[in-house]
């Protein structure tokens, strides 16, 4: 209520200065906090990424980026490449699903992780958990196929009530495998 009649305090520069000062102080604080947390945050991010990859390829002792393929990593054990960890994406029931897929050099699914999805909790989101997950592990391209026939043990059984998600997850994983197979030339 202070300023209504007070012409002086309403001058353009006073007003601007007021806001500018606030922003400056704000900037100072943020800069300060950023400065102190930046390293920790960066470290955390790297740790998490490594931990995630480690969880996918438990045997590996080292992860190296793959040249020319953004986001791709070679999982190495004792200097030998045992698997590739690659990102993938597919369209699910509620939107895009993002994966991190570990594929063995032979083109088998080693493991995968769903990083981001918008599937229904309790239904579609089971696609990143057992028992659905275990079905996919070890499968090759040919058998990454969703079926709804319980007698078919070769392929992937759809999750009940979530055929769309089942397909989406399987296709996402399959895409990763195909890319890896193409990259490694099938060997």
């Amino acid at each position, binding site marked *: 209520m202070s300023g209504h009649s007070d012409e002086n305090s309403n001058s353009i520069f006073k007003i601007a200065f007021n806001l500018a000062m606030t922003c400056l102080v704000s900037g100072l604080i943020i800069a300060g906090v950023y400065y102190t947390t930046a390293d920790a945050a960066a470290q955390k991010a790297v740790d998490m990424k490594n931990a995630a990859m480690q969880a996918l390829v438990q045997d590996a002792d080292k992860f190296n980026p793959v040249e020319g393929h953004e986001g791709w990593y070679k999982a190495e054990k004792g200097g030998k490449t045992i698997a590739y960890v690659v990102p993938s994406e597919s369209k699910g029931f*509620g939107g895009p699903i993002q994966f991190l897929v570990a594929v063995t050099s032979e083109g088998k699914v080693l493991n995968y992780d769903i990083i981001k999805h918008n599937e229904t909790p309790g239904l579609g989101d089971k696609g990143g958990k057992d028992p659905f997950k275990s079905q996919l592990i070890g499968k090759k391209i040919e058998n990454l196929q969703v079926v709804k026939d319980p007698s078919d043990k070769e392929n992937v059984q759809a999750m009940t009530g979530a055929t769309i998600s089942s397909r989406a997850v399987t296709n996402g994983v399959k895409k990763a495998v195909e890319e890896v197979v193409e990259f490694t030339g099938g060997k």
Partner: protein
Amino acid sequence: MEYLTLFISAVIVNNFVLTRFLGLCIFFGVSKNVNASVGMGMAVTAVMTLSSIMAWLVYTYVLVPFKLTFLTTVVFVLLIASFVQLLEMIIKKHAPALYNMWGVYLLLIATNCVVLSVPLLNVESSFSLAKSIVHAIGSGAGFGVALVLMASLREKLRLADVPKPLEGLGVAFILAGMLALSFLGFSGMISL
């Protein structure tokens, strides 16, 4: 086609209010009569679109090159608030008719999550400028649709014999719940 899908998705399938829970304060606050809700819907759409454009420009040409993305929140919110305040003053001065129609809603919008979230989602999903605009318009339209529907339902309910404790906000939530239940019919229709 891609734009159309994006648009429809924002309007119906992933409706901001009913599936993403954004802008609920206005949604419940201004949905008491249909006319007001139409005005609000248009105002939100306009503000959302314009601020999306500006936010996108600032983000792409200032924040990203200088690696300042953690300032996004501060900068966006300040940008929107100032922009809305400016817009309001201009309209009030130069187009009083327009102001009477929906200018009054602008103030409500200045600090509201639905308006802030669209630019944030745009940059988070790395949309191009064109996509950002489509997304903003679609989101605004979706917000408007939900608002108008809700308002018409509440107008009808005004004449109903609603149990006392539920009157007002309580029953509005329940209606929103049933509205959301109905909108589930569109789920799975478009996956982005």
